[in-house]
């Protein structure tokens, strides 16, 4: 007797459809699972057996062999519990085979027979739909998230008994009735802030707007208490909505990381991630034994990764950012295989000017030695700063400036950013870029007019910027032109861009 059904396993963010077969043999009672299961999946034997008897059915006194195919794909976790139970009970003739064979079953079983929610339902359901199977059974606690996938015919079940009764079993009785629901994660603070909260800081606000319009990475240096963190938190608020593909990828990452609020639907607003400077490399890029889980850079996919006190991060952690900054994704290799997570984020760095934080203006009050000061910022390595187009100083607000007038709100700034982005997108569509920050240096030099370039070459000649620095000034100049609504940057834009990079040498 053979029972068959389907389930999905995740490798990274890709859901792979697997077939679950159960075979019953007239032999001594045993229960084996084959097909590269890991420990959590091996423990499914005990959960499935207990859940079945809790549902009022007898577990077959046979040799039960469950095979998960393709056998070469490593399988992990508890999400296949439900499929294993259904396949075994089909094989035992407890339920008819037709309906379960064409359905996908996802969910972990409790010993009491309830179906418990699992992480990563969105990419799993998407994987099943992509493979052409649309009838999908999910835990009732994951129903809202599963419904986000278009074209899926999703059914939420609270217990194994409920599902078996639906498949025509007359003996199945649920012993526990309260369905298991997942508590939604706390609402992120970044969604409730507005740029009008920031008093003064016209230069830094302008830099933030330019960063948003061109997708440029940003470094802010300045003494503590000047609003660097406040500004960074308000960057997602002036960024445009995520395009559809990016929204699905971002939602999938958060589903897998367990930080998704499914009642809010797909993540359409850019996320904001601010890991503490004590974070390990694995926490930032993703990690964990066997197949790695997504880290802060992937949770920031489509949004902003903010590193406050950036020089305090360990050098190793900062180095790991280089590959994702270049490619927009991270590949994590483990003994059991490599996983790929999206990681296209906008990097915002904040740093004090020196270890004591008071070196600004004439430097009065700073207790650091010149050597300490130099060492401090040099912890941000050249290769990393090479990718940061904007470097601005955030100075203490003077009394007069703070009191002056109503500050612009995020909505007003976001409208200008959206217009500039649209202009850039139309211009760059043919070359395959979306924002100025992605544009290659050769393209910039070829398209920028000679007179406009002049200030950059002059600065290069005088040794004020490096060749790469000159390229970056041109890149920012295009964004400034987009914000002004001009076709191409002029000399004034390039001069302004050079000012926005004053950290460079």
């Amino acid at each position: 007797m053979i029972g068959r059904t389907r389930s999905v396993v995740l490798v990274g963010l890709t859901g792979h459809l697997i077939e679950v077969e159960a075979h019953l043999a007239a032999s001594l009672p045993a229960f084996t699972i084959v097909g590269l299961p890991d420990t959590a999946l091996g423990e499914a034997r005990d959960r499935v057996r207990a859940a079945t008897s809790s549902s009022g059915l007898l577990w077959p006194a046979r040799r039960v062999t469950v095979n998960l195919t393709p056998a070469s794909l490593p399988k992990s976790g508890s999400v296949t519990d439900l499929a294993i139970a259904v396949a075994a009970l089909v094989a035992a003739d407890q339920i008819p085979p037709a309906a379960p064979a064409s359905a996908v079953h996802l969910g972990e079983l409790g010993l009491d027979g309830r179906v418990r929610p699992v992480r990563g339902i969105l990419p799993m359901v998407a994987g099943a739909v992509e493979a052409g199977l649309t009838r999908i059974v999910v835990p009732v606690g994951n129903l809202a998230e599963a419904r986000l996938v278009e074209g899926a015919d999703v059914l939420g079940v609270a217990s194994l008994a409920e599902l078996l009764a639906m498949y025509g079993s007359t003996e199945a009785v649920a012993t526990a009735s309260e369905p298991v629901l997942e508590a939604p994660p706390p609402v992120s603070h970044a969604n409730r802030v507005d740029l009008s909260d920031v008093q003064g800081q016209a230069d830094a606000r302008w830099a933030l707007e330019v960063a948003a319009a061109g997708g440029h990475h940003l470094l802010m240096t300045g003494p503590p208490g000047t609003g660097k963190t406040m500004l960074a938190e308000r960057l997602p608020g002036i960024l445009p909505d995520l395009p559809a593909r990016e929204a699905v990828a971002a939602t999938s990452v958060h589903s897998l990381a367990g930080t998704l609020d499914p009642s809010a639907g797909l993540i359409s607003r850019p996320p904001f991630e601010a890991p503490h400077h004590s974070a390990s490399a694995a926490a930032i890029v993703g990690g964990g034994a066997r197949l790695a889980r997504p880290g802060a850079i992937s949770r920031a996919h489509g949004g902003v990764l903010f590193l406050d006190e950036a020089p305090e991060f360990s050098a190793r952690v900062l180095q790991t950012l280089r590959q994702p900054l270049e490619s927009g994704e991270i590949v994590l290799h483990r003994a059991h295989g490599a996983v790929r997570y999206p990681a296209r984020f906008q990097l915002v760095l904040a740093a004090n000017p020196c270890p004591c934080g008071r070196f600004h203006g004439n430097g009065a009050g700073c207790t650091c030695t010149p050597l300490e000061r130099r060492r401090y910022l040099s912890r941000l390595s050249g290769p990393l700063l090479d990718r940061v187009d904007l470097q601005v100083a955030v100075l203490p607000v003077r009394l007069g400036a703070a009191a002056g007038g109503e500050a612009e709100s995020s909505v007003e700034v976001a409208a200008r950013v959206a217009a500039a982005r649209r202009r850039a997108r139309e211009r760059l569509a043919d070359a395959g870029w979306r924002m100025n920050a992605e544009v290659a240096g050769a393209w910039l030099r070829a398209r920028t007019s000679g007179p406009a370039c002049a200030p950059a070459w002059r600065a290069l000649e005088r040794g004020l910027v490096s060749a790469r620095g000159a390229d970056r000034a041109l890149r920012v100049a295009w964004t400034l032109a987009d914000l002004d609504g001009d076709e191409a940057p002029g000399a004034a834009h390039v001069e302004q861009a050079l000012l926005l990079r004053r950290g460079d040498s």
Partner: protein
Amino acid sequence: MAAKDAVGRYGEDLVVRRLAERGWVVLARNWRCREGEIDIVATEGDALVVVEVKTRRGASMGAPQEAVTVRKLARLRRLAAAWLAAQDRRWPEVRIDVVAVTLPRAGAARLEHLRAVG
């Protein structure tokens, strides 16, 4: 004789009768040595079969065959070897079967024959 031994004996009698009906030749019953006891030794055609009989009244303690653990199976294998060593004949095939006998409160006994379990 304790009640459970009587039940076991009754189950074994049932099995012997059933095997004989199917043309098996019973060579020995309750053969003992230092390792323990074999319930039934029989031949089915060319094959020599060591049969372990497990009898239960009702299903409250689970199916009878669940009582045959990996350790018991290993002991059955050692017993089979001991029995073979005491014989002059040789068989081309030797296997171990378990027959699970369930005795319901009313009605006929239910026999389940599990072939070549180890």
